[in-house]
Structures are given as C-alpha cells and as structure tokens.
C-alpha cells in the first residue's frame, strides 16, 4: 500500500495538518513506478526477492502438486497392501468367473469314451503327429 498525505491547511511558510490515506499499488506489472524517494525509504530488497515471479510459481502449481501427492499415496498404499496381503481379490459382490473344470474325471461319474484323435494334445499340429497314430 502506498501512503498518500494531503495537507489540510496552507500557511505562508508551508503546509500543516496532514490527512493520509492508503492507495493500492495496483496490479503487478502495471506501469506505475515508485518514486526514487519511496524506493530509497523502502530500503534494499530482502535477500532472494525478485520482481519477476519464478517459473512454476506456487500459485499455479499447487493444484498439480496436490494431485501428484494424492496419486503417489494411492500407488504406495496399493503396493503396500499387495506386499502384505498378497494380490488383491475381487470383492464378494463382484460377479465371479466360472470355475475352471477339472481335467481329471469327476468323482462318481465315468469319463466318456473319447476317440483316439481326441487324445492328441491340443497344442500339437497334424504335421507333428505320428503317421500310425493319425491313421
């Protein structure tokens, strides 16, 4: 704030009775310039002070910084939970996948007869089969 002093009385030798009011210095970057007297009265600028705002000023990057901290916290919490309790399981209300059928015969039931060709492993192709077995 800039102090403004208006003299309330005028005498033959000077002014008398000062009234003062504070004026907002205005937006940063405005064309107003402080007087040399005011600059001298203000004294040297504190260490580290600068007229130009540094890049990534706190006013602009604060929301981004908050977001990064929250995201990092969530990742850390997930990693810690997995390390302590194993892989995450789906909640009970989530539709579970159908159980994988057992490869062996179901107890109490006889395995259906299968043709000889079906005995071939699914991953094998015909080119790798034995000719005898293929016939």
């Amino acid at each position, binding site marked *: 704030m*800039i102090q403004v002093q208006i003299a309330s009385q005028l005498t033959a030798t000077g002014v008398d009775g000062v009234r003062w009011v504070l004026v907002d210095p205005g937006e940063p970057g405005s064309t107003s*310039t402080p007087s040399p007297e005011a600059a001298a009265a203000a004294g040297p600028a504190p260490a580290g002070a600068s007229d130009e705002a540094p890049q990534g000023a706190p006013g602009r990057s604060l929301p981004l910084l908050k977001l990064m901290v929250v995201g990092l916290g969530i990742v850390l919490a997930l990693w810690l939970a997995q390390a302590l309790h194993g892989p995450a399981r789906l909640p009970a209300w989530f539709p579970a996948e159908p159980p994988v059928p057992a490869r062996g015969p179901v107890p109490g039931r006889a395995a259906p007869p299968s043709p000889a060709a079906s005995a071939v492993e699914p991953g094998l192709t015909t080119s790798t089969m034995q000719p005898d077995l293929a016939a």
Partner: protein
Amino acid sequence: MNDSTTAALRWHDEAEVLGVRVRVFFFDPAEVDARPDFIGRQLPILQGTAARLLVPEGQRDTYRVGGLQAQPDAVLAHGNGLLCLSWRGGDGRALDAARWRQQWRADVMLQAIATAMAVAGQLQRPTAALWRGANLLCQFDPGPPVLECLASNIPAAQRYWDGVAQVSPAQLASFCEPRLRVLPGLAAEALHAA
C-alpha cells in the same frame, strides 16, 4: 464573507462542500493576471512567499500512484510540503463572491484532489490541493470519507473505464462523485446546501 483565521493566510470565505472544506480567495483578474511572477499570478494569496516551481513554468510532469495518473498544471515546493495547482477544468467563468457555493462544480474540486493524491503518492510528501479559477483561488481540505472514496475506487474506476491501465483524475472524479453524493453524512449536507 468570513475571513478565515487559518494560519495567517487571509482566505475570504470557506465552506464545507461534499465532504471537502473549501477555502476561497477572490482577486481581480485584470490586476493579478498582469503580474510578472508566477506565484503572484497563479497563487496570489502566496505572493512574496518562498514557494518555488519544481519544474519550469509551462512544463508538466506526470505523477502516478497505483492506477491513478495525473499531469498537474504546476507543482511547487512550499516549506515542508508541496502545492499541487490546477487551473484547467471548469468553464472559465468568474464566480460571484456571494453565490459561489451555488455555482460550485464538485467535479473540478474532486479532480484537483485526485491530482494532488497522485503527486503526494509519487513524491511521498504532504501535498496541498489547489485550484485557480478565473477570479478565485481555492484550497481543498478533503475529509476522510472523500479521501477513502477516491483512494479505494481507483481499481473500480479502471474497470469502469474499459480497463484502462491508468485512470485520470477526471475519470476518477466522475466515477466517485455520485458515490459521494449518496454517502449518508454527505448526502444530508448536500441537501442542506441546496
């Protein structure tokens, strides 16, 4: 007319106008305008004093405080303070010494005060606001509501005048005058004066 006893200067009359104490000194323009020295011609009540111009006559400097920028007609050093003198504004007519209150223009008065605020703010010295008309010299002593209104409305006046970087005293005065007229204390005073 009431001769003012204020600090030995012989003002001819004074009155409270819109929150401003106005002291007036009437003179004969034919005689005063013919004086060779600047002080005697423009500030006849201070003729013979040690007041001196900060810049040569006819040259105008620009003064700024916050978003207010002014070019007073003259700035003088006078003892422990400054004198900010304006003679532009008004319609150039001579005022009647008996009816000057009714003929008074508040916008001219507020412009002179705003101009003095810019000078006082930039040079950081107590400054008296003065206006010279065709046949009178005025000194303005603004009360706190007037000073606060002018000082606090600079940003609003900037926005009102299309977001100008620097508002002029005339723009600030025209913005603040209607606001001053509706202030509770000043509105009653203005009604009484009318």
